[in-house]
């Protein structure tokens, strides 16, 4: 169970900005999101999308705990 956040065009594409998802790792989470919404899964795999785990950018897989917060960040536009 992790809290998943989407920003910018990813949230528009998915139709949601925040959701609780059952998953034990980032890889499992991506698979679950992709299964429920293939277009979102495709978008999340884009090279310009970054992932933050508990507000820190991470690469590759990570174990998730029930209170993990995972954010998918499309290219930042600046302020």
């Amino acid at each position, binding site marked *: 169970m992790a809290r998943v956040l989407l*920003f*910018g*065009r990813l949230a528009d594409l998915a139709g949601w900005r925040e959701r609780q998802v059952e998953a034990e790792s980032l890889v499992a989470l991506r698979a679950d999101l992709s299964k429920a919404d293939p277009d979102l899964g495709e978008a999340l795999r884009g090279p310009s999308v970054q992932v*933050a785990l508990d507000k820190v950018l991470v690469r590759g897989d990570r174990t998730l705990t029930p209170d993990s917060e995972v*954010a998918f*960040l499309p290219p*930042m*536009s*600046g*302020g």
Partner: protein
Amino acid sequence: MSVTLQTDAFDPGALLSAFCRGRQETGGICSFTGLARAEAGQTRLLTLEAYPGFTDAAIAAMALEAAGRFGLQDWRIVHRVGPISPGEAIVFVATAAAHRRAAFEACDHLMDWLKSRAPFWKQEQGLDGNRWIEPTARDLADAARWDEAAG
């Protein structure tokens, strides 16, 4: 030395007044205020999305780095999030230093970074619908000026 992200409109002058107060050893204070332009009648609403706890932390880390690099005595950053109307202030940056060159350069540098690399997602609602914006070539070139200088 603080960052504020806020949905409410702010008065840049009130922030500058507070920032200038009680300074005995500051020689120069530079401020920059970024405003939302109306773009000649093509009325747009600008909406900025931030990731609270992530966006402000990234801005503070950047500002602390700049403060060390330019020898700032103090800095202040306020950034709007949410919908912003034309003519309203989007961002306020103030820098204080013993000498004016450092205050100018640090403020300029912080703005370049904020405009091109700060973790915001910006949407323009124009007459032809909504679109998410990415940094312009100009923004990226402005920000890149400082990469070399740091080397």
